[in-house]
């Protein structure tokens, strides 16, 4: 079985390296095909592993020693257990689809080969992240994902906004990674190992304060990767990257890493429920906060990005409240329908010549039926309507919140569900139905190549049916993860389900009703609330004013005043003094032996004087 593990892990790397060989060349179709096939192989072998893993058997291999210095002994070990295999399957499945899709999407891009190299490297990093059996390996994957996201978001680096967004994502992640690193150091300091099993076996012996710090630091890391408030701004800006990248970042890799970390470190968080509760509260806040921003945004991809943020909030609520398997379940189902949404959005973008303003679309259903159907399905799944995948997972999260008697959180999520339903269908309505605004603007949308649509169908299928695997998923995953006890009465649960479904349905209904009649009037755009939402609660502005500007001024000050006037001046002065003394002393070098001898005697005299006044301590 080990060979399947290695195949899963290294097939993407191989693909990446092959594509990298041709990175600077003109478009070569085969790089896309080879990487797609290799990712496909990776997917197949992870499915084989999924079949192999059950309650008793997990795969744990140690590839080689990595760091072995003094007391530090960190191996390159990989573990395939119930959690990581789920992640592997999800990641490789979505990645395969994204790869195939990208062949169509990046068709006309001149850096075709480079793109596939990055994309596969991204998948490889994510696999390292999920498959590592220790925190150090996880951190490697973590950084690898950060690097690849930087490369991919800034893929069109000649665009200023793209490189800006890439840097923003990277820097935000760096801030969070510091927290993550502190957490790891703390773990290593207190436990003496970074292996998951050893850490979790010894973690109970630590005092609560240390545990709390570890939990907080690890969560700071997770906050960065999963773009939780207040480090969320990079996610929406990351939409500057090519759409398949957005799909990959949002659905399978990168942002889910934070959730994965919290799930992985579940045994730590189980000991510190207060921190878990904070995580859940933050998650619930982000769920509503992001959803509210999605309500008014006009950028196709940003809307979906905010929805990702919001759904990540849901996952963190589940994970924070200790329902790890539900968080993982939502992560998986979300991966399916969110990647579908993104890839569909990519199709729309292509059709509209990279126009992203949904107010300029409308009525695209006639020209791109398949995409419209796929995206509608995905939106329904996102909104959480029975029997789509989103229903099962999202509803469970709400139940968990209610079960925990965290009614405020529950209410937030409840509102979030309504908002989700509304903005998803606002998007669908504005893009695919209603008035054909794009005709007036002179766009001629056309459907994408068929193989792209075929590539999306597995996702669509899973977005519909994934929810029905809930029970087997539960049984499978809880072999490793702690089960969550529902103490809720069955009837109350049922009422909750109905309430949530009702609120989601009403959200959909409201959106459909409102936007089939031309949407909201223009006067809304002048209201304060609209301005607040469209400006993302002025948070980017706030960051710019409070962090960027002062930092910029500080740097400028440091450069112009400290560096130029003090540091440089000092260095220059030393040079000038030396030069000046050299200039003066040059006259000594007359070449006259007699004067040289005099200087020598002068030196002797000075040494003698020194010998008198500076005596060695005896």
């Amino acid at each position, binding site marked *: 079985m080990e060979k399947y593990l290695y195949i899963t892990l290294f097939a993407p790397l191989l693909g990446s390296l092959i594509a990298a060989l041709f990175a600077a060349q003109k478009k070569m179709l085969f790089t896309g095909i080879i990487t797609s096939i290799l990712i496909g192989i990776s997917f197949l072998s992870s499915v084989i592993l999924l079949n192999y893993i059950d309650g008793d058997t997990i795969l744990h291999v140690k590839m080689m020693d990595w760091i072995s210095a003094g007391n530090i002994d960190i191996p390159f070990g990989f573990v395939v257990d119930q959690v990581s295999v789920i992640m592997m399957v999800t990641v490789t499945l979505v990645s395969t689809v994204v790869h195939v899709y990208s062949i169509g999407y990046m068709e006309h891009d001149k850096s075709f080969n480079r793109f596939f190299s990055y994309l596969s490297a991204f998948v490889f990093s994510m696999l390292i992240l999920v498959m590592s059996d220790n925190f150090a390996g996880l951190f490697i994957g973590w950084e690898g994902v950060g690097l690849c996201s930087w490369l991919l978001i800034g893929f069109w680096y000649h665009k200023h906004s793209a490189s800006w967004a890439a840097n923003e994502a990277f820097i935000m992640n760096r801030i969070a990674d510091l927290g993550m690193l502190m957490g790891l150091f703390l773990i290593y300091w207190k436990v003496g190992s970074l292996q998951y099993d050893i850490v979790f076996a010894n973690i109970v012996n630590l005092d609560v304060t240390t545990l709390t710090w570890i939990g907080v630091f690890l969560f700071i890391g997770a906050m960065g990767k999963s773009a939780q408030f207040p480090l969320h701004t990079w996610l929406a800006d990351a939409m500057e990257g090519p759409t398949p990248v957005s799909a990959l970042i949002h659905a399978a890799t990168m942002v889910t890493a934070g959730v994965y970390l919290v799930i992985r470190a579940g045994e730590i968080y189980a000991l510190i429920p207060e921190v878990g509760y904070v995580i859940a509260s933050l998650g619930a806040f982000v769920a509503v906060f992001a959803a509210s921003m999605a309500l008014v945004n006009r950028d196709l991809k940003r809307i979906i990005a905010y929805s990702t943020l919001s759904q990540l909030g849901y996952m963190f609520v589940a994970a924070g409240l200790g329902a790890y398997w539900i968080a993982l379940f939502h992560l998986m189902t979300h991966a399916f329908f969110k990647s579908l949404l993104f890839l569909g959005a990519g199709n729309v973008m292509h059709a509209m010549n990279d126009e992203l303003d949904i107010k300029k679309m409308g009525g695209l259903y006639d020209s791109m039926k398949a995409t419209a159907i796929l995206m509608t399905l995905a939106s329904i799944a996102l909104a959480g309507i029975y029997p789509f995948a989103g229903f099962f997972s999202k509803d469970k999260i709400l139940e968990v919140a209610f079960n925990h008697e965290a009614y405020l959180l529950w209410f937030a999520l409840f509102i979030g569900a309504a908002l989700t339903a509304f903005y998803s269908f606002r998007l669908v309505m504005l893009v695919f139905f209603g008035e054909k605004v794009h005709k007036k603007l002179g766009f001629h949308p056309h459907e994408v190549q068929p193989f792209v649509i075929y590539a999306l169908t597995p996702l669509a299928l899973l977005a519909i049916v994934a929810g029905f695997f809930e029970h087997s998923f539960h049984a499978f995953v809880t072999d490793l993860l702690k089960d969550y006890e529902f103490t809720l009465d069955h009837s109350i649960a049922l009422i909750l389900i109905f309430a949530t479904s009702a609120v989601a349905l009403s959200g959909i209904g409201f959106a459909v009703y409102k936007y089939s009649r031309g949407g909201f009037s223009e006067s809304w755009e002048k209201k304060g609330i609209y301005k607040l939402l469209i400006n993302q609660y002025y948070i980017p502005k706030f960051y710019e004013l409070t962090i960027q500007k002062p930092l910029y001024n500080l740097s400028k000050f440091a450069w112009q005043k400290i560096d130029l006037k003090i540091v440089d001046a000092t260095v220059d002065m030393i040079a000038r003094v030396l030069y000046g003394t050299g200039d003066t002393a*040059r006259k000594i*070098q*007359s*070449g*006259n*032996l*007699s004067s040289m*001898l*005099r200087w020598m*005697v002068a030196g*002797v005299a000075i040494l003698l004087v020194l010998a008198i006044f500076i005596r060695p301590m005896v």
Partner: protein
Amino acid sequence: MMIGLTHYLILSGILFIIGLVGVMRRKNLLMLFFSTEILLNAVNIGFVAVSKYYGDLSGQMFAFFIIAVAASEVAVGLGLLVLWYKRTGSTDLDSLQMMKG
């Protein structure tokens, strides 16, 4: 009154200073050589005195080697001096300015 080590060392120092004066004052290359001989001899006295008062033969050994060095220095130095005199007809130090940078 006994003659101690200090007496010898001070004498050695005085002779050394005389040598230094010579080194600084003399402009004739030959005279300069004389002055260096004085320097070497001054040091020799010091060495031998220390050797005597500490009962250690190393000082004498060094004096011995210094004499050897002085002898070879004179041999080579005089050779160069004669060569220089043949070429320029002068042994004046001020005519030796080739090292001017």
